[in-house]
């Protein structure tokens, strides 16, 4: 009998965390932000504007169920908090309109801007949000208020979904791909397109030519970085510069963007994939306080 071992190389680890040192019952305002993205969903709870707990899960086929799943997982980890204990819930991300229990929705552009200041500090002026199917270049002020932004058009080339596909094609776990792509003696030319479909064909050609996986990844991430830098330059890059969203965890992409810009990205104080949900929760706190005035 033949056994087929299947591995999901694209699968990134889901995570749930709670700050055990804090007691949520002491908080005056408990706010929650849910960033329902095309690929991943983050839910965070903030106590008086400070991060207390989060869940980072994969988005499923139902937006409402994905939001519910992330919030429930987080509440379960907290233990004694119920959804009713939360004063204000703000939804953001591509699926924000489909979160039935959110009191308000705010765009992920505003939320990533606001969240980036929390994650990176108030010096950040340019935020690059690299998500599952969107790239957004956002200019913010010291409060994280959006001054200007640009978003990629319909095409999701060079985004998280594309990286998942390439990792699957090369049988490389997605969490290792960034580091692996840096193990090349010389940076190869970028693949000629970041379009997932065309890049896949081109990569198959490179495999047949005998290219190693590291080199292929380097060529692909080089192309992704070029596309991102083009978007950033259109909006105008001002230091300090920070990256949010799932791809911010891919050192292979981040390093190449830094090299092309000649700028070092800021070091995050918290998981930068949470920036959108954190921004939403901070807006939630403000909205709650406003409603009580």
């Amino acid at each position: 009998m033949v056994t087929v071992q299947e591995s999901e190389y694209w699968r990134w680890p889901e995570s749930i965390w709670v700050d055990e040192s804090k007691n949520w019952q002491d908080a005056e305002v408990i706010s929650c932000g849910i960033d329902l993205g095309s690929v991943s969903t983050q839910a965070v709870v903030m106590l008086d504007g400070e991060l207390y707990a989060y869940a980072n899960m994969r988005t499923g086929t139902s937006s409402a169920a994905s939001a519910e799943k992330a919030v429930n997982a987080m509440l379960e980890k907290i233990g004694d908090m119920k959804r009713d204990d939360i004063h204000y819930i703000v939804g953001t991300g591509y699926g924000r309109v489909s979160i039935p229990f959110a009191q308000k929705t705010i765009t992920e552009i505003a939320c990533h801007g606001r969240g980036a200041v929390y994650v990176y500090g108030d010096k950040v002026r340019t935020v690059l949000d690299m998500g599952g199917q969107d790239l957004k270049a956002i200019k913010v002020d010291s409060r994280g208020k959006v001054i200007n932004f640009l978003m990629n058009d319909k095409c999701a080339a060079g985004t998280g979904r594309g990286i998942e596909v390439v990792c699957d094609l090369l049988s490389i776990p997605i969490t290792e791909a960034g580091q692996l792509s840096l193990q090349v003696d010389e940076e190869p030319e970028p693949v000629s397109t970041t379009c997932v479909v065309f890049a896949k064909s081109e990569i198959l050609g490179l495999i047949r030519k005998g290219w190693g996986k590291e080199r292929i990844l380097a060529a692909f991430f080089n192309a992704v970085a070029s596309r991102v830098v083009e978007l950033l330059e259109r909006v105008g890059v001002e230091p300090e510069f920070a990256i949010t969203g799932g791809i911010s965890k891919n050192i292979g992409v981040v390093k190449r963007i830094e090299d092309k810009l000649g700028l070092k990205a800021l070091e995050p104080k918290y998981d930068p994939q949470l920036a959108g949900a954190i921004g939403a929760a901070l807006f939630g706190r403000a909205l709650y306080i406003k409603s009580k005035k």
Partner: protein
Amino acid sequence: MGKNVDDLAQLKQFKEWFDNRHEYAKKWKKKTGGKVVGYYCTYVPEEILYAAGVLPVRILGSHEPESITRPYLHDMYCPFCHDTLAQGLEGRYDYLDGVTLAQSCLHMRQSYFSFVDRVPNIEWDYYLPFPHGVTNPYAADFAKHEFENFKAAVEDWLGVTITDRDLDRAIEVYNKNRELMTKVFEMRKADNPPITGLHAMYMVVSSQVVDKAEHNEVLEGFVEELQDVENDREIGTRLMLIGSEDYDKELFELIEYGMNYPATFVFEENCTGARYFWGLVENGDDRLMALAKRYVYRVPCPAKDWARGDFFGRRRFQFIEEVIKDYNVDAVIIAQMKFCDPHELDIPALREMLDNMGVTHLHLELDLTQPVGQFRTRVEAMIEAMGEEDLFI
């Protein structure tokens, strides 16, 4: 208690004409026995056709995916060209007797020639040269000369003579239509405009596909009824739409009716909006010169306004600047048809002008169908960036 604009019979009529434009033309033809000519681009002097008893209808697309135009049009020609040609190839314009184009851009010209060659029911076609540089002092003379040839070709085809009286009658009908639509647009300067951009689109685009005299009758009632309209919608951000032709109701429905924040278009500077009807024909002894001046001096399409602005300056930009002030515009949506080179060339200068005026703006690239989710995020993010100061605590 004021009336709700959506309940007005006139508005329902505009929408009905817009939705069922092909059926209207077929019925008109049956009723009158007259000829119907489809036109590409709003630089065609419809009055000459109308004076000869012809019904001019603008050729429009359907915003449905298609895959039959690729043998005739390059992929990187604009979606409007593909969409319009597709309608012809699919037989939706099977009632047209003729088709004409006033030269505007190369994409449109290619679509037009393919339409002429591939749509079997076309018995008459006319490519009308029209000056590119409408800021050139000789542009009106050029246009007049071409209008003479156009008139002669129409007369020859139909075996009729278009008299000055015929032209006067046509000019009168068309001017009345322009005046009435301008009146409706003027009402949108109010703090609480009686109509939305979606309503305006139905009004203007329906006027492009039905008999203007009939449209005028309905319009007259509409202007009157609008005095009593009381809107219960929140106006929110006052938006101006600038760009390519835009008759995709999905876009208006999204921005004006489907967002998290209230927003209302108060002006559309495009050829399915003000650029179509703004500016009257100042009739005089020389009818064709009067027509030529109207079409040359109207608010120009970017395809025509590119020449050195040493005669009149960039008239379109001057017009936009005035509208922003007069209509109290908060933000501009620049909606450009994908691959539309004339607009693409104009947009950097337009942005610069808006920046200098301190007017917020957002660029959306229109396609055959729109990425509604992404557009929503962008427009909402623009509005969020304009306000919500109290959320930064």
